[in-house]
């Protein structure tokens, strides 16, 4: 009887493991999906930005009537593009690195180096999310509105800092998980299983 209960217990454990595994997979897939799609966000922004500045230049040159918000909006959208792309680049492994030695390491070796990568990413992201977030709250409480052209609340502008940090942090969580998986199991984490 004891044996039987152990088997049941083991079975339960396995199903529990499966549920955990499944939800981790699902989470990873969702995070990947979100960051993957950021190219559309950036694409729309860059097209809008191009035409807005183009229009501003023409309106200024021919009619002496540039927009009042163009300059400020350009700056803000550039900041948005910068922060939004961090997670995407992490997903695509496009953050520039020197791979002279790195490419010669084994998969496990790479994962071990990347433990430092993740340590550094989390060190970078946590202040952006936490202190950036509290700065947003502070600006929100003060109700400060910019007077420099794009006259929206400053907290909205600054929101991109914790937001971008979160996107990068989530993606780093995924790559971190994969590295740990590889170090522990010795196998590469397969995305579509």
């Amino acid at each position, binding site marked *: 009887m004891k044996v039987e209960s152990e088997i049941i217990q083991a079975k339960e454990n396995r199903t529990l493991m499966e549920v955990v595994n499944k939800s981790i997979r699902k989470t990873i897939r969702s995070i990947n999906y979100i960051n993957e799609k950021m190219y559309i966000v950036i694409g729309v922004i860059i097209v809008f930005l*191009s*035409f807005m*500045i*183009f229009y501003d230049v023409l309106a200024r040159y021919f009619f002496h009537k540039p927009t009042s918000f163009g300059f400020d909006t350009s700056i803000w959208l*550039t900041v948005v593009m910068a922060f939004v792309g961090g997670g995407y680049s992490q997903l695509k492994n496009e*953050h520039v690195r*020197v791979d002279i030695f790195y490419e010669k390491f084994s998969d496990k070796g790479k994962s071990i180096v990347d433990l430092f990568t993740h340590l550094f990413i989390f060190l970078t992201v946590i202040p952006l999310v936490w*202190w950036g977030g509290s700065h947003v709250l502070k600006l929100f409480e003060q109700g400060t509105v910019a007077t420099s052209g794009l006259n929206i609340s400053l907290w909205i502008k600054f929101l991109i800092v914790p937001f971008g940090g979160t996107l990068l942090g989530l993606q780093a969580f995924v790559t971190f998980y994969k590295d740990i998986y590889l170090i522990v199991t010795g196998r590469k984490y397969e995305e579509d299983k």
Partner: protein
Amino acid sequence: MDGYVIALIMFGALMIGIMMGIPIAFTMSGISIIVGFFIWGGTTSLTGFVLSAYSDVGQFVFTAVPLYIFMAGILRYSDLVEGMYEAFYRWFGGLRGGLAVGTTIIATLFSAMVGTTMVSTAALGAIARPSMIRRGYNDVLTQGVILAGSGLGILIPPSIVMIIYAVIADVSPGQLFMAGILPGIMMAVLIIIYSLVVCWVRPDFGPAIPKAERFTWKEKFVALKGVILPLAVIATVLVTIFMGVATPTEAAAVGVVGSLICAGIKRKLSWSNIKNMFEMTIGLCAMLFWLVIGASAYAKIVSLTRVGEYLSGLIEGWNLSPMMFLIVVLIVYFILGIPLDAVPILFMTAPIIMPIFESMGIDLVWFGVIFIISAITANLSPPFGIQMFILKGVAPDIKISDTFKACWPMVGLFTLGTIILFIFPEIVTWLPNQMYK
């Protein structure tokens, strides 16, 4: 602990991290956050980091960065190079080494449209190289002109490295753009002379098209239509700047719209192409801006250590002339440049070197051009360099030993160019001085 010891530790940790293969941006920010925590009042430093992260990216001049990247993406996926190559092939094919000349000219024209090196490397590697090899051109010479010619992308305006340099050194991006034109043309001429000399000495390296296969004048003129669109894009951007329609930053948007029209005419605006253009934009843009974020954190902590003052004092003690100092800096840059790209080098060294330059009264516009040439040189020196890998990427049949052989003479050419600019700084300063008088 003395400031300069901390700075030394930081620099050492940075080099170790980078060499291990940790992404440069996060090595810089990570180290700065750790060190900052200890020398800048604990969590206070984190607030400093976060506040700066927003504003350091949020500078109007930086708006040009994504715009020029997007423009490069549009041009890259519009297959402009084929048309250009066909034109130069028909015109110069009959000349010994003529295709090498044509490839250099295309690379130079492309450099005047894009702010990076990789677009022309990829496009010419995919189109010009197979055609040259088929015509019996030597692969070492072929790769050499492609890599060196494409390198001009960051020297001839527009140039993303120049924009970033302008922000860091606090010089006018427009002036820096002007300063790069003549040295860029000079380098192109040097590459052309080199190819012609090589093919004159070794006719088998760059054979002329046989007489019977040469093109008629009509065919030659018809092919020129492939050059019209690219020239129109270049002309539009330059004219808007010169006529005072737009500032150099804003001109990037004019270039994007021009390139989009160009791509539309060539019917290249399919969704899959647009997707490629967007993906190139987000990838490069994020890569560069997270470097800016990491680097500005790093620069702050380095200035907190006061290492700049310490080094200035040290260098003053050595009694180096500005010239000697420059040469030392360039050697250091060259060594750093072997594994690293121009932008991270700039970010790593600027907080230390710029103040010294200023106190020595070195012309920062002139130095900007010298710096960029040294970055191109380092990028071309084996065994590492992003361009080499891009070339290998589009032309997998390449033997990397050939690439190395191709690069050395080009390293020599760019070194020669640097020496010429040291002797005749007017080549750099003349044009901006004409423009700004």
